[in-house]
């Protein structure tokens, strides 16, 4: 266990270092001059607006007037000491902006994952247990929609129906539980489809296993077999998915937070991109990379705990 942990942590550090390097590379190894992109409005050529003094000031603030290797080492050192620089658009430390948004995103993401798991479970069970092959097939087909429906469209549709038409939930903001419902539901519906499909397949497979036959021969009903035995085994692949789900939720948060006007790191990211606020983008890349790494480690640990047979090898 200790060896496993050590190896995973080492792996984590490497990925994290990679994410830091990537965020450094983003700004430095791209076509065009980052300073001019930041000061201009997109491609490097339109940056006629900045004065040479502004340019020079920004260049030295970003350390861009030093040799590349020195810049890189300096960047690493600063990141490791928790100094991710200042947002170019607000002038505040980016850690402050991110800190302000992180809680909201965690709340949204956590709720969404929970709802997604519940919805996924519901659909999977319905798709396996409902009487009638045709009915089950319809339920299973619906789950495929979750993967195909654009989240931005779903968000718009939910606003139209539940906020404007029915007036049940607010379409905007982050005041209280009410305002959490629609954004979380949007994210959950998009994610639930995948979970439902995984579970359905797991359950279907399990029902074909010898032990299910044994159970059937003992006279156990379909639902007893599913709930009593198959579900547990079918749940394991879902657990391994949580890491990916967190990534998906963060991607979804970009859209959902923008459409619902919620503060959070997804919206922060979009605003960073719009304003060419590279320090902010870099910090968010490092943060999301780190988040993913931590979550996958936790999932791996949980996985080993749930299924003690796994002793060797690193899943995922």
């Amino acid at each position, binding site marked *: 266990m200790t060896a496993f942990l050590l190896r995973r942590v080492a792996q984590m550090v490497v990925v994290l270092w990679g994410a830091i390097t990537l965020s450094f590379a983003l700004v430095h190894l791209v076509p065009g001059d980052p300073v001019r992109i930041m000061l201009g*409005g*997109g491609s490097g*050529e*339109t940056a*006629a*607006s*900045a004065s040479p003094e502004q340019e020079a000031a920004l260049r030295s603030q970003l350390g861009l007037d030093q040799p590349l290797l020195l810049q890189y080492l300096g960047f690493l050192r600063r990141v490791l000491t928790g100094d991710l620089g200042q947002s170019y658009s*607000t*002038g505040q430390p980016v850690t402050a902006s991110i800190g*302000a948004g992180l809680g909201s995103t965690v709340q949204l993401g956590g709720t969404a994952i929970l709802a997604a798991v519940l919805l996924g479970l519901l659909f999977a069970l319905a798709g396996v247990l409902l009487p009638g092959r045709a009915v089950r097939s319809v339920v299973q087909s619906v789950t495929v929609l979750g993967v195909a429906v654009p989240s931005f469209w779903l968000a718009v549709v939910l*606003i139209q129906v539940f*906020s*404007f038409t029915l*007036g049940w939930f*607010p*379409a*905007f*903001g982050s005041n209280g539980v009410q305002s959490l419902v629609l954004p979380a539901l949007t994210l959950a519906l998009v994610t639930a489809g995948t979970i439902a499909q995984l579970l359905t397949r797991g359950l279907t497979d399990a029902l074909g296993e010898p032990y299910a036959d044994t159970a059937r021969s003992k006279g156990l009903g379909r639902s007893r077999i599913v709930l009593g035995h198959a579900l547990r085994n079918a749940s394991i692949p879902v657990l391994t998915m949580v890491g990916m789900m967190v990534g998906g939720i963060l991607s979804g948060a970009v859209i959902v937070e923008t*459409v619902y*006007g919620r*503060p959070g790191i997804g919206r922060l990211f979009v*605003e960073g*991109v*719009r*304003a060419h606020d590279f320090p902010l983008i870099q910090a968010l890349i490092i943060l999301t990379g780190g988040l993913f790494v931590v979550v996958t480690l936790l999932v791996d640990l949980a996985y080993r705990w749930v299924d003690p047979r796994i002793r060797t090898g690193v899943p995922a």
Partner: protein
Amino acid sequence: MSKRRPTLTALAAGLALLLAACSSGTAGGEDSASAGPTTGGTLRVGFSDDTGNYDPQQRPQLHARTISRQITDTLTDQDPETGEILPWLATHWEISDDTTQFTFTLRDDVTFSDGTPFDAEVVKANLDRVVEIGPLAYVAAGYLRGYVGSEVLDDGRVRVTFDQPNAQFLQATATQSLGLLSLDTLALSPEEVAAGNVVGTGPYVLDSYVPDQSITLTAREDYDWGSPLYENRGRAYYDTVEVSFIPEATTLAGSLASGQIDVAYILDAASADTIEASDAELVSTAMPAISIPIVPFVYRDVFADEHTRRALSLATDRQAIVDTVFQGRYEPATGVLTTTNPGYVDLSDELTYDPDQAETELEQAGWTEVGSDGIRTNAAGERLAPSIEYVGSGTSTEALLQLLQQQWKQVGIDLVLKPVAEASEDALHQHDYDLSTWSQTRADPDVLRTVYSSFYENQSFLYDNADPELDQLLGTLQTTVDPAERLKVSEQVQRLILERGYTVPLYDLTQYTAHAAGVQGYHTDIEGKPLFVDAWS
């Protein structure tokens, strides 16, 4: 205006000298007046835009000014009905015969929310500061053109001196651009003030500003010097005003319609239907402003020739624009200024839709060849493809520009759209596009001076191409006191601006805001800015 303000300059300035009537909202509490206003509670306000700068004296976008209106007071106020200048923080004033010296006598019972007293020293410090930060506060500084200095006569009296007649200064003291700030606030850097560190004498205190999220205002308990135009001169009824920024036009309207907010400020014209279908009340203000134009930049090569600039206006079908894009909710422009501006002159003869004449003008400017794509080229082989940068995809502005694109294509002009995510804050002339659109509200013809004079050359649409004749006329406009004479000068200015193709007026803006049925006493000033001090539920 903000959703439709596509570029950097959604300017807004002071009140009218002469404006008679205007359809600003009226107090809505009459029928339930028996109950009387109640104190307490929170007013939830949705703003369509976070202008990001809440220094009353700096950039004067409408949203910022609306906040200023609640947290600062001014020396005078102005009656929207009569245009009369009323005493406020100044109880009395004397103006020298040549309108170069203004002596104000001040109230002695006014304090800032930080406890410091309001006196002559503070007034002097405010005016000095506006001039000092100059271009940062270019509208306010424009009002103070020729400022020599302020002299503190005693605690309660201050004398302001100009080196030439300044006909519009007294009216300017009623505008939010000259909102009065405490000495501590003035000592901060302009950036710090912009970030919301503002202390004024107003009925509300700016508690917190979280960019892109919220502004919280709290009522000042000891407020007792409201404007004569306020119904309520004492403490505001609502304890707090909670402003959230809701940039999505539909969401803003929907949030009000479904009761999630109490006031929506400013609505897209397309959202008016949503409000009318709900039980919330729509409040419209015909803005006393410059008619919303497209402005060709004279300093760009493509628009160096005035024939080309004039062709733009001739190729523009204004009626079609207001009918389709704004579904008839706005009126087509009939002059450089809107009909509710006291300097308005009907110039509709100059604003006809005449594609044939447009083509003639373009031919004269050397755009003689028509390519296979229907777009004109000149002898040098350059395509006539001016570009415009604007903010806000999916807005009415974008729809308008797409329609304009089709109209101009008929005469061989290819209007290139450059949507950007964020407005640049730099001076106009430094950008890589040829046209802009913007709005400026001030119920005085002097509004023209702010953007066409060479006073701040870097803020002028004529950058580097100052028009001496126009400059001279604008100077006359500022120093002319007699109203009839002023109107005459105003007409000369506007004719010149159209003749030389400096602008393509499109439509007269009507501003839409709305409030929930339960909000009483909601009314707006002449510029459509809500006055929260009088509202209650």
